[in-house]
C-alpha cells in the first residue's frame, strides 16, 4: 500500500537554532498518527512544516506521493489538500458555526455545501448549533466545530495541534475517543501532536515519540510502554525505575531482586554491567517472598496502591499492588519480580 504522508530526513531551524534533525516517518491512508513529546521537543514544528507554514532546511515532505516541501521548494498551504485543527481552534468569530464549517467548501456548489455542513453538524452532534456563533459555545463544542470545519473539504491529511489541551481531564478522554470514532467513520488520515501519552494511546494507531528535535521511537502504544528503545522513551512513557543488573546468560540478567528471564537474546556479553527497566507492574507483592523492601510512600489509585519501596541496598522500586493489600509506611513487605518484557540499557 502506498503511504499518505512521507517525511524524509527533515531538518528545520529557526535562525541558528536547529529544531528538527533528520526526522523521518510515514503514515498509511486511513491511519491516525501521533507525535508525542515534551514541550519544546519540536513536535508542533513538524506539523507546521507539513502544513507549509514553516520552510524546510533539508529533507522533504510528500503528501499522497506528491512532494510539497524540500529545501528549495514549498507549495503554499492552501494547495496542499490538508485540514488543520489549531490549539486555540481559530474559529472565525464573525461567522456562524455553519458558515465556519462551510468555509473550506468554496469550490462546492451551494446544495453540496449545505448537505456536507449538515452531515458534519450531525456527526459532531452540533445540529442544534448551526446558527450559533463561536463565542456562544463551550470549549468542547468549539473543539467539535473546529474538527468539523477541518474535515469538511475531506482533506487528504488532517493535522491536529494539541486539540484537547485546554480541556479538563474527563472531557479530554471523552473527546479523544469521539474524535477517533469520527475520523475512522470518515476514513480520514490524520496526525495529532500532543504531550499527553494517554491522549496519544486513546486516539492513535501509531505513535512517534520525539525529543530534542529527533524521533526517538515510532511504534504502537503497547510497544512504547513495554519495549522502549531508549532511556528517554522509558522515562517519558509510563512509570518505572531503572536499576543496575549484570548479564548472566544470553537470555537472563541478575538484579538485586533476582534473575530476570528475557524472551529475546541479549546483545551484551555475559558479566557485563547493564541497567534494566522495572515497571510498577513488574514488581509483585508477595508475602511469601524472601526478598523484602520498606514502604517509603504510597498513593491510592482506587483499585490499586502504588507503593514506593526501598530495598536494603538503597535501590528504590515501584510496586503496583491490589488495594486490599493495605500496608503502612515503614512496613517491610515481601516482593518478587515478574517481568514480561526484559528491557536492557547499556550502563552509562
Amino acid at each position: 500500500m502506498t503511504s499518505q504522508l512521507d517525511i524524509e530526513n527533515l531538518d528545520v531551524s529557526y535562525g541558528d537554532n536547529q529544531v528538527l534533525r533528520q526526522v523521518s516517518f510515514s503514515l498509511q491512508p486511513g491511519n491516525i498518527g501521533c507525535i508525542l513529546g515534551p514541550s519544546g521537543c519540536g513536535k508542533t514544528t513538524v506539523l507546521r512544516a507539513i502544513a507549509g507554514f514553516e520552510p524546510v532546511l533539508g529533507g522533504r515532505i510528500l503528501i499522497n506521493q506528491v512532494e510539497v516541501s524540500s529545501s528549495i521548494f514549498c507549495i503554499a498551504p492552501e494547495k496542499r489538500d490538508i485540514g488543520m485543527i489549531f490549539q486555540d481552534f481559530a474559529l472565525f468569530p464573525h461567522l456562524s458555526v455553519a458558515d465556519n464549517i462551510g468555509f473550506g467548501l468554496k469550490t462546492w456548489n451551494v446544495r453540496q455545501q449545505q448537505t456536507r455542513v449538515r452531515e458534519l453538524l450531525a456527526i459532531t452532534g452540533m445540529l442544534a448549533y448551526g446558527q450559533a456563533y463561536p463565542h456562544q459555545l463551550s470549549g468542547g463544542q468549539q473543539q467539535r466545530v473546529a474538527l468539523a470545519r477541518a474535515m469538511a473539504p475531506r482533506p487528504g491529511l488532517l493535522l491536529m495541534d494539541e486539540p484537547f489541551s485546554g480541556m479538563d481531564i474527563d472531557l479530554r478522554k471523552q473527546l479523544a475517543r469521539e474524535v477517533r470514532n469520527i475520523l475512522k467513520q470518515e476514513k480520514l488520515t490524520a496526525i495529532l501532536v500532543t504531550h499527553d501519552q494517554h491522549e496519544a494511546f486513546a486516539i492513535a494507531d501509531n505513535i512517534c515519540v520525539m525529543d530534542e528535535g529527533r524521533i526517538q521511537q515510532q511504534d504502537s502504544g503497547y510497544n512504547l510502554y513495554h519495549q522502549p528503545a531508549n532511556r528517554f522513551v522509558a522515562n517519558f512513557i509510563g512509570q518505572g525505575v531503572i536499576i543496575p543488573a549484570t548479564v548472566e546468560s544470553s537470555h537472563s540478567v541478575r538484579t538485586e531482586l533476582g534473575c530476570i528471564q528475557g524472551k529475546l537474546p541479549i546483545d551484551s556479553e555475559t558479566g557485563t554491567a547493564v541497567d534494566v527497566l522495572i515497571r510498577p507492574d513488574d514488581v509483585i507483592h508477595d508475602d511469601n517472598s524472601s526478598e523484602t523492601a520498606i514502604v517509603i510512600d504510597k498513593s491510592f489509585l482506587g483499585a490499586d496502591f502504588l507503593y514506593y519501596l526501598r530495598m536494603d541496598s538503597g535501590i528504590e522500586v515501584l510496586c503496583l499492588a491490589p488495594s486490599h493489600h493495605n500496608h503502612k509506611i515503614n512496613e517491610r513487605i515481601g516482593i518478587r519480580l515478574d517481568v514480561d518484557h526484559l528491557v536492557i540499557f547499556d550502563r552509562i
Partner: protein
Amino acid sequence: MQGISENSLGWVIRYRTSELLKGWWQPGILLAALIFSIPVLTIASFLLQPSGDVWQHLVDTVLTDYLINSALLTLGVGLGTLSIGVTCAWLTSLCQFPGKKLFIWALLLPLAMPAYIIAYTYTGMFDFAGPVQTLIRDWTGWGYGDYYFPEVRSLGGAIVMLSLVLYPYVYLLARAAFLEQSVCVIEVSRTLGCNAWSSFYRVALPLARPAIVAGLSLALMETLADYGTVSYFGLGVFTTGIFRTWFGLGDSAAAAKLAAILLLFVFTLIVIERWSRNRAQYHHTTNRYRQLPQFQLTGFRALIAFVACLLPLLFGFLLPASQLGLWALDTYTVMVDASFIRLTLNTILLGLSTAVLAVLLALFFAYGKRVLASKLVFASVRVVATGYAVPGTIIAVGVIIPLAWFDNTLDAYMRDQFEISTGLLLSGTLFAVMFAYLVRFLAVSIQSVESGLAKIRLSMDEAARSMGYKPAETLFRIHLPLMKGSVLTALLIVFVDVMKELPATLILRPFNFNTLAVRAFELASDERLADSSTAALMIVAVGLLPVILLSKSIASSRAGS
C-alpha cells in the same frame, strides 16, 4: 515533473515578492518613525544648545513662576482626579446603590468636554457679571467688594476645571482594575479577618494601584498639555510661557528650550505610566472570575454614594453643557452664518483627512509589526506611539522649526542656483497642521487598529490558508470583516481629537484658516462667551460620540467573561 517545476517557479516568484515586500516595508516603517519623531527630537536637542540672552532673561524673571505654577497645577489636578476618580470607580464597581447603572457610563461624559470650554463656561457663570453673582447681589443688595466670592480665573479655578474633565482617566482605569480583581482575592481577605472597608484599603486598593497610577499619569499629561484653560485664566505655566516667549519676545530658541524642559516632565510621566501598566499585568494572580460581590448600600450611605457620583457628573458635564445650550439658543441665529458654516466644513475636512491618513499609517505600522515581527519595527512603532503624551504646543514648535529651516534652506539654494524664490513651501500650510496632528494622534489610531488586529490570531490566518484561501483572500474574507469596527473607531477618535485640538492649530494654521476650536477660543478670549457657545457646543456634541462608544464597550466587557 512538469507540475512540480511550474509550482516551484510560482513559489520562487511568491518568495521574491514577499522578500521584496519586506525589503521596503521595514525601511519604510523606520523612515516613517524617524519623520514623526522629528518634532520631539528637535525640541529635545534644545536641551543641549547654549542659551541666549532671552533665555537668561527668562531664567531671571519668569522661569521660577512657570515651574511653581506648573507644579502646583499638576499637584492639584493630581489630587482632584485621584479623589474623584477612585471614589467613583470604587462605588460603581463594588457597591450597589440607586442610579449606579446610570453612573457607570454617565461618569465618562466629562471626557467630551474640552477643559478650555468648561473654563469659559464657568467663567461666564461665576464671574462678577455672571448670573450667579448677579443673583447674589439682587438677593442681598450687596455691591462690588461687599462679599467674598472665589475667583474662577485663578490657579485654584484651573485646578478645579481640569480635575472635573480629566478625572475620567483615573475613573476608567481604576474601575477596570477593581473589576478585574479576582473575587477570590477579596474573599480571601475576608476569610483572613478584613471587613469590607479594610479589604478595600489593604487588598483592592494596593492591587489597583498600578492601574490608578497609569490613569493618573494620563490625566497629568493632559494637564501639562493644556493651553486653552491656563491661557484664558492668564496663568504663567510652561505652555503659556512657550507662547509668550515665541510670539511676545519673538525668540524661538528660548521657546524651544522651555518646551524642552516641559518635555522632560512629560517623559517622566510616560515612564511612570508604562512602568505602572507593566506592573498591572503581574497583578493578575488568577484567571478565575465570578460575579463580584456587591456591598449593598442603603439609607444614608446610599444617599452619600449617590451624591458622590452625581457631583462630578453635574459639575463636569450637565451644568456646563446646559449653560452652553442656553447661550447657544440665544445666539445661534446670529452666530450661524456663512463664515460659521465654512469654519465647520474646514474642521470636518481637516478632521476627516487627518483621520484617514492616521488610520492608513496605523494599518501600515500595525500590519508591519504582524508580518515582519522584528524588534526594530516594534521599537519604531513604540516611538511613534509616544506622541500622544507630547503637548500640542511642543509639537507645534517642534514642527515649525524644522519646516522653517527646510523652507529657508530650499529658498536660499534655489535663489543661489536658479534665482528663483520658492518662499515658504511648507510652513504655515495645512500640511504643517496635519503633520502635527499625526505626530500627536497616530498613537490613538495605532492603538485602536492594533487591538482589532490582536483579535485576529495568527492561527486564524493559518486556518484560512489550510482551507484553500490565498493570502489576499484571507485578508478579504477574515481581516476585512473583523477589522471594520476598530478601523471605524480609530477614524472617529482621531477625528474628534483633531476637532478638539487647540494649541497646535493656533500656532500652525495658515493665515485666516479657522477651526471650531480656534473660533471658540478667540470669541471667548474677546469676552464674547455667549457667542462662543455654538462652536463649543458642536465640539462637545461630536466629542460625545467616542465617549458613547467607550461606555458601550465597558458596559459589555468584563475580564473573564
